[in-house]
């Protein structure tokens, strides 16, 4: 194992204030950034704003009007004078722009001459589209294009796992909100009005909405050419006929949660001179978007260039395409830039949601509470299109009994098609639904054998050397017991709370208020699985600027708020000791970084950046050696900067050095289709939660008073950002426990707005107490473990367990409603 030299003391969680470098010093960075910019003439407006912005002026093509893209509208390099390396918490390089309101999110983009796009969507969850009359729409003044399925020049379908989703509906409508036609006009209101003037004729059909019924042989097919069963993952470990003296069964339901990112689906497509298109987009994976968009446009990939625009949160909802192909189609048809921005209501129809689930579990244990077997059946309603349902099913199955050592497992997880809203990736990805079920079961088991809830978990806790139900060995630290002890031992929340249940609504002065405490622990995989060839690419360039070394990091990795841009710079700082680091805008001119999902980016893109830095160190050392000036300290024995100031000049005088590395983790393997056996996952991550709630038992209102959590992150690359991820993920878990659900009846969404899809406010969230363990994973960069998803997993069941403790109500469904608590 290579020793990784650090230039900073480990484990400091301080934050530092930095001033961002001035514009003039970035001149050379600017040139190199210019080299990285997408092709095509683009004259940026004269207004140069603050440092960190690229002020780039290139000659406009005088014979043809060019798109004038406003500064701040183009994603810019983020210039960093990072004082901290890995293990410290420097301020994020895009922070200045974000707090001043100058950071360009995808919905802030703007180009002279741009048109606005709008989408006509189906009001019915299932129908045949029998006619489309575009006449009135086309005739509306200000409308420049109205396009339908036959205007899609390339492949007419796309999809992450199966290309089963039409760019625009043909004759089949499979979900409420399915896009049918798109319009480009000179004002968003005109575009919207034109879309509403399109006359669509439907033959309305009865939707397939019940998942259990959809699996029956006689059910209508959502897709005529394939069964409704999209994927079945069985897992068989040990003896399927095992018996046990204590048996606990339960049926649980998880409602459809929404990612509800605040930044709406949006982007700007700019037609290019070469017949291609430049797309500025908020997304999670530039290259997978590029592949699908190019295929649908019938263009080679080099003509479809994507640049990441500012992302206002993602949480899985930006893995699938939303308006990407639509905006590009309109831009290519009209020859003008086209911007599309979804409103919040449209957004609820414009992205996939978390799979609602029905989970049936049977736990068998001995009288000491030690698990003998677990049998489970998980049904995940994938809705109209496949999205990433297959992978979600595999996750639910392989992680579905929780972080426990169980000798006998019979698990069947199913993902299916219905005419309900399409479901796909959401932070937690199948592990969330399963955890609510298995942790509810563990509490039932505790009651059945007369043990306290933490004790029964400790007795079954997974540990290093155990095998998962898939047979995969749990390598490296697996501190399940330790995490449980940490949350149990944290002092209880003090009596009293800032608000009673009901907040300021004056529903109680303490009457009926009972306090309850609940525990849960969960497991999540990190990175992609089942043999997927996942990799990340990083290009790191070193050159002298003003006589000092400056680094440029260029990846296609999507910063979605998690702080990846900060971490990339920290890694460069640690590996090369270079203070001035510029993070180039993420785009497709460099190789894929993979998805910002599966809690994988610090691991993968971090790993790629680190590998590129290590390759650069070797080249720097070689250059110095060739010049007769070997580096003053040996590689593996680092305490100070990698090179002295003189050495840097010596090494880079001859010119810049650049390395592009495509970096992979150890391979994983497929699951056996009958037994579910296989080393499918890269890494496991664990988190535990303890929730303390006050419940008004007469009214069924809940105030979460405190949440304590413990999580092993392997190595806290940026401790402040790690805390932020844990706190944010916990909030999403609380939301699922108490208030978040897309209510679907007969395939129709009843609450597509923030009025009735409720997110936790600051008055719903309690203070949080964090314990962060750093038990290094021997296989990952710096020993780190993915951070983003584990907090979403055990938070929900901990809150529900606390409510059960206060009320005695069974609460087998989330989100919990007051009606469930009072039994009304």
């Amino acid at each position, binding site marked *: 194992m290579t020793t990784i030299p650090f230039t900073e003391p480990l484990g400091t969680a301080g934050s530092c204030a930095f001033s961002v470098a001035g514009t003039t010093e970035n001149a050379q960075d600017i040139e190199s950034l210019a080299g990285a910019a997408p092709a095509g003439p683009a004259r940026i407006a004269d207004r140069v704003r603050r440092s960190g912005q690229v002020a780039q002026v290139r000659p406009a093509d005088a014979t043809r009007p060019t798109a004038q893209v406003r500064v701040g509208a183009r994603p810019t390099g983020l210039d960093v004078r990072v004082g901290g390396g890995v293990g410290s918490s420097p301020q994020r390089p895009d922070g200045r722009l974000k707090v001043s309101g100058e950071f360009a999110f995808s919905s802030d983009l703007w180009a002279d001459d741009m048109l606005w796009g709008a989408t006509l969507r189906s009001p019915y969850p299932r129908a045949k589209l029998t006619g489309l009359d575009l006449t009135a729409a086309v005739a509306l003044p200000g409308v420049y294009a109205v396009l339908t399925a036959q205007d899609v020049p390339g492949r007419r379908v796309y999809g992450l796992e199966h290309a089963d989703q039409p760019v625009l509906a043909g004759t089949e409508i499979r979900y409420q909100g399915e896009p049918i036609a798109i319009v480009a006009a000179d004002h968003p209101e005109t575009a919207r009005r034109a879309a509403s003037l399109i006359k669509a004729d439907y033959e309305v059909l009865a939707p397939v909405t019940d998942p259990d019924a959809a699996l029956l042989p006689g059910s209508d097919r959502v897709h005529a050419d394939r069964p409704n069963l999209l994927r079945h993952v069985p897992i068989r470990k040990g003896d399927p006929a095992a018996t046990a003296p204590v048996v606990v069964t339960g049926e649980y339901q998880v409602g459809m949660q929404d990612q509800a990112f605040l930044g709406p689906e949006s982007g700007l497509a700019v037609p290019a001179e070469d017949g291609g298109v430049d797309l500025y987009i908020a997304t999670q994976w530039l290259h997978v978007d590029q592949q699908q968009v190019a295929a649908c446009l019938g263009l080679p990939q080099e003509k479809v260039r994507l640049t990441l625009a500012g992302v206002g949160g993602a949480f899985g909802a930006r893995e699938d395409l939303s308006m990407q192909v639509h905006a590009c189609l309109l831009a290519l048809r009209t020859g003008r830039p086209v911007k599309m921005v979804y409103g919040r209501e449209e957004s609820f129809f414009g992205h996939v949601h978390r799979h609602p689930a029905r989970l049936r579990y049977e736990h068998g244990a001995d009288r000491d509470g030690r698990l003998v077997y677990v049998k489970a059946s998980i049904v995940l309603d994938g809705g109209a299109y496949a999205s990433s349902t297959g992978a979600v099913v595999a996750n639910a199955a392989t992680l579905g009994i929780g972080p426990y050592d169980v000798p006998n497992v019979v698990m069947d997880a199913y993902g299916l098609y219905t005419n309900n809203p399409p479901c796909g990736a959401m932070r937690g990805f199948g592990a969330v639904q399963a955890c609510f079920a298995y942790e509810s079961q563990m509490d039932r088991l505790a009651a059945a054998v007369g043990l306290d809830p933490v004790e029964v978990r400790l007795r079954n806790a997974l540990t290093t050397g155990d095998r998962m139900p898939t047979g995969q060995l749990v390598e490296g630290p697996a501190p399940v017991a330790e995490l449980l002890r940490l949350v149990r031992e944290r002092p209880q929340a003090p009596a009293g709370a800032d608000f009673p249940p009901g907040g300021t609504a004056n529903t109680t002065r303490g009457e009926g208020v009972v306090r309850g405490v609940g525990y849960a622990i969960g497991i999540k995989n990190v990175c992609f699985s089942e043999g997927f060839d996942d990799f990340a690419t990083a290009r790191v360039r070193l050159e002298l600027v003003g006589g000092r070394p400056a680094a440029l990091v260029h990846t296609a990795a999507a910063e979605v708020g998690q702080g990846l841009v900060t971490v990339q710079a920290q890694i460069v700082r640690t590996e090369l000791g270079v203070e001035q680091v510029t993070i180039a805008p993420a785009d497709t001119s460099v190789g894929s970084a993979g998805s910002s999902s599966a809690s994988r980016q610090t691991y993968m893109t971090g790993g790629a950046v680190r590998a590129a830095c290590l390759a650069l160190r070797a080249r720097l050392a070689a250059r110095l050696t060739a010049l007769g000036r070997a580096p003053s300290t040996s590689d593996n024995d680092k305490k100070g900067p990698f090179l002295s100031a003189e050495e840097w000049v010596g090494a880079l005088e001859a010119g810049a050095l650049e390395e592009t590395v495509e970096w992979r983790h150890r391979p994983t393997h497929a699951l056996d289709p009958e037994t579910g056996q296989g080393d499918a996952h890269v890494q496991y991550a664990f988190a535990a939660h303890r929730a303390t709630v006050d419940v008004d038992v007469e009214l069924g209102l809940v105030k979460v008073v405190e949440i304590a959590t413990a999580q092993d992150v392997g190595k806290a690359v940026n401790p402040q950002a790690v805390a932020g991820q844990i706190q*944010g993920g916990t909030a999403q878990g609380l939301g699922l426990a108490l208030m978040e659900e897309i209510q679907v009846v007969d395939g129709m969404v009843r609450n597509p707005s923030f009025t009735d899809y409720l997110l936790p406010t600051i008055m719903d969230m309690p203070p949080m107490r964090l314990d962060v363990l750093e038990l290094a994973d021997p296989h990952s960069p710096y020993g780190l473990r993915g951070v983003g998803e584990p907090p979403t997993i055990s938070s929900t069941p901990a809150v529900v367990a606390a409510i059960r403790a206060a009320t005695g109500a069974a609460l087998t469904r989330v989100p919990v409603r007051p009606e469930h608590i009072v039994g009304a």
Partner: protein
Amino acid sequence: MTCTVNGVPRTADDVWEGESLLYVLRERLGLPGSKNACEQGECGSCTVYLDGTAVCSCLVAAGQAVGREVVTVEGLSGGPDAEPGPVQRAFLAAGAVQCGFCTPGLIVAVDDLLSRNPHPTDPQIREALAGNLCRCTGYEKIMEAVRLAAGGQA
């Protein structure tokens, strides 16, 4: 329509009467700092000052802002080359910014809170910011940022 924005008289042409002040700021006056997360007053990402009062600009009709004074998050920044103000510095120092979409609305709301109540208690902070949704942070570091700004330590 004409109004004063961040101290400067601004005129927007061809404003459709049904447009919100938010739309005018973002799409006509080149001030996209205020955000459009919900456009129905449920998230606070569009919070601005209108004649000194914190409001959701998505709920102000463009015509209602004529002749009035608007201050946006850009106005609280003191200009592109200015140092960030104390609330902004506190957000940065506390790590209260992740995706940043809620941040502009929060900066204005916190500025408003501290101007009226310079040393708020935690419950007062929560009640004052109940109209600003954040999906990334769980609000803990936002609370830290407000305490930092109120304590004058930012």
